[in-house]
């Protein structure tokens, strides 16, 4: 019985994190973007600096009518948001934020594989949405999504493999436990490649070709309204949380801080992840959208060779020091 209670509690905590952290990232994005563009952003909802703006947005979305286009493939159209969102919830389960059993939803033996495999499934949601909408723009968005995933899955896997080689384990808590400070310069190229490929997989600017609003309206999500559209947005922000958490755990040493990993280690994890989330927003404000051919070229001619070089470097250093 105690076991069941323990599992239920962990699931509950992960679920609460899943519901709140994306909202926090979203609100931060509102404010950071506004200030970078010389605006104030939302100021009224909830009183203090518009903190309740996203809650109000959620209420608005829930009140809207749920429309399915007449020509659409009804069931797949309705199923797609769930397929897009659920993988991120599963991934959150496996990301450790502190040392010990208590600070991770569920220790997965082959953590890296689990996380990358399940994250890849989320893209199926966009593909299903793009196809089932019976809309040319949606279909184009779906196509671009697929092409983007195929290009960027490989560098992500390769750089994750480089960290796994360095740590000698594929378990996420194991990798952070093996972390030393000099891994940061050693794995720097891998970290950048992983982060960029992750951004592309989430379709965040400057890699938001699949939802390029000036070309194809809103890509795969054009026909969606109300709660289902909100679920796609939530999936994007949950994706940011997952990507920043993963980059922190794999490349930035998770709960290791300047004063050791004891006690407040989880604060370090959250701080590093929050910093990365800020960088994600910063990039969105700074860079214009890449063209489709530039996007493919960046992956195949730059990121993949870089990640292969990183693997070679990791292997050489590993052999030299052992």
């Amino acid at each position, binding site marked *: 019985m105690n076991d069941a209670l323990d*599992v239920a509690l*962990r*699931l509950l905590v992960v679920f609460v994190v899943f519901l709140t952290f994306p909202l926090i990232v979203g609100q931060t994005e509102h404010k950071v973007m506004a200030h970078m563009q010389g605006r104030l952003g939302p100021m009224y909802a909830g009183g203090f600096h518009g903190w309740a703006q996203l809650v109000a947005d959620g209420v608005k979305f829930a009140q809207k009518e749920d429309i399915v286009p007449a*020509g*659409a*493939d009804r069931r*797949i159209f309705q199923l797609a948001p769930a397929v897009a969102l659920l993988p991120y919830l599963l991934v959150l*389960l496996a990301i450790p934020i502190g040392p010990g059993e208590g600070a991770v*939803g*569920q*220790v*997965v*033996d*082959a953590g890296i*594989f*689990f996380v*990358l*495999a*399940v994250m*890849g*499934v989320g*893209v*199926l949601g966009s*593909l*299903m949405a*793009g*196809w*089932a909408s*019976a809309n040319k723009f949606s*279909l184009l968005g*779906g*196509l671009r999504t*697929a*092409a983007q*995933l*195929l290009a960027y*899955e490989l560098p992500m*896997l390769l750089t994750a493999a480089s960290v796994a080689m360095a740590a000698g384990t*594929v*378990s996420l808590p194991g990798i952070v436990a093996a972390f030393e400070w000099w891994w940061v310069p050693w794995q720097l190229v891998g970290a950048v490649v992983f982060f960029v490929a992750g951004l592309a997989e989430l379709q965040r600017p400057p890699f938001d070709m699949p939802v390029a609003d000036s070309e194809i309206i809103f890509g795969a999500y054009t026909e969606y309204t109300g709660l289902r559209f909100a679920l796609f947005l939530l999936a994007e922000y949950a994706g940011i949380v997952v990507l920043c958490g993963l980059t922190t755990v794999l490349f930035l040493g998770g709960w290791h801080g300047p004063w050791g990993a004891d006690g407040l280690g989880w604060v370090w994890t959250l701080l590093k992840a929050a910093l990365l989330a800020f960088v994600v927003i910063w990039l969105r404000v700074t860079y214009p959208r890449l063209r489709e051919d530039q996007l493919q070229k960046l992956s195949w001619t730059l990121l993949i060779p870089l990640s292969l070089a990183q693997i070679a470097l990791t292997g050489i250093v590993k052999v030299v020091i052992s």
Partner: protein
Amino acid sequence: MSLAAATAAAARATTTAAESHGFLSPTGVEIAFLLVGLVTFGAAIVTVTTKQLVHAALWLVMALGGLAVEYLLLTAEFIAWVQVLIYVGSVVVLLLFGLMLTKAPIGRSPDADSGNRWVALTVAVAAAAALVWVVVDAFRTTWVDLKGPAAGSTEVTGASLFQNWVLPFEALSVLLLAALVGAIVLSRKAKADATTPADAATPAGAQSRRSEKEGTR
């Protein structure tokens, strides 16, 4: 929900099953295995019988995912995640990409049926029979020790792969490399043809090129 917990439970259950359960008193894991197997089988059948192309691809996701769950229930965690990563995450996405790029109508495609249905069924049954026969024949007298670490964990899989099966592994990687190089060569050749389309395609072009060659000779 917590899949690794399920795996661990499965490992525990199978070890205790050997001790406390008889041949025909199945444990929860065994029942789950059967049920997931039925779902997987059903999804596979629908994949090849449905008349809607994209639905077939999505049912294939279901079948491959069901297979991954079966691996998990057999405590082969590593294989399960690789199955999801490669098949659900990449192969099906590639498949859907191809479908959307060429022909993906919403609704039924009357021409989705092949006349080779019975031949295909025969080949499938023969392949399944051969696989089952090989596996049964290979592992008939093998005893699996359930007491140690779960035999499907990453560590055990890796050790076995790189200690006992290095040669097949390397042979496979060379095969994949050959396929990769082949793909690049094919795509480059197509590109070269595309730049001089009329010249290479027509007999006149071939003629003129031959005369050129003779001229240089």
